[in-house]
């Protein structure tokens, strides 16, 4: 029953747009497409520049860190206290190698700090002990 009215209505159509509308709509859409395309190219170029800049910053950062570390090592090596401790520990190692053990080293190192024992320590030094 409903089919008749349905079929009848299918003989109708919705009104069409004016023929001029097509060129207007397409021209606007195309210009947006072009702008978007240019935008995409600019965006891609910007991304490349950004990537290069980021790599450069990273490279400079690594160099700066290495430089800083090297500088700190040099400063530590040049520090007189560090040098003194290093020599002292080398002496202890030497005494250890001589079979005089770490306790002996400690004793000698302790004695060397006492002012009036200095001649005794100097005497030991003569024997390279």
């Amino acid at each position: 029953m409903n089919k008749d009215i349905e079929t009848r209505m299918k003989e109708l159509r919705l009104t069409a747009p004016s023929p001029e509308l097509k060129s207007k709509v397409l021209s606007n859409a195309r210009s947006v497409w072009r702008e978007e395309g240019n935008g995409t190219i600019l965006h891609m170029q910007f991304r490349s520049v950004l990537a290069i800049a980021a790599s450069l910053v990273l490279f400079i950062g690594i160099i700066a860190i290495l430089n800083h570390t090297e500088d700190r090592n040099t400063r530590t090596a040049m520090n007189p206290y560090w040098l003194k401790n290093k020599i002292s520990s080398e002496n202890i190692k030497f005494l250890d190698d001589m079979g005089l053990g770490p306790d002996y080293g400690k004793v000698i190192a302790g004695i060397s700090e006492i002012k009036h024992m200095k001649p005794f320590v100097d005497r030991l030094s003569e024997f390279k002990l």
Partner: protein
Amino acid sequence: MPDNMEIFRVIQKKFQDNDPSALELVYEHFGKRLYGYLISMVKSPSDAEEILNELFITVVRKREQIGKAENIRVYLFAIARNLAYEMFRKRTSQKETLSGYAQYLEISEDGGSKWDPEELDAVRKAVDGLPDEQREVVVLKIFERMTFEEISQLMRISQNTVASRYRYALEKLKEQMKGFEYE
């Protein structure tokens, strides 16, 4: 329908290839239909033109999604629908509209039987008198030749709801057209 599917595929391929000639094809295939759907909603030729223009700009911006869309026809009509609703929200005053009658309905070139002006007028009045949600289903089903499934995807309602809205609409139209021997 297979022809349409082939055209849909060609259009989508062009969008995927970032080829602007896709726009021409979209207009050729969907331009009139989208305009007809829009004018049935907004009932103003100038508003329908404005929305169609906006729609094609949206198409350019969403070309990647359109290239991958499951059903390009539903996708385009959904954009049209959203833009029309956006216009309703923004519209503060009633502009020149085709009020009173659904004057956007015309006799198609291949309209088989003769239509006397009185009958055409009566159909226009009857369609115009339908509630918005029923009129939209009628327009999409009868004039845009969409399936219930496509309409349900577009309107985001179940197919059963679409079918019942369509049935109620036809009953109302039949009731309104009593004097013209519709059974």
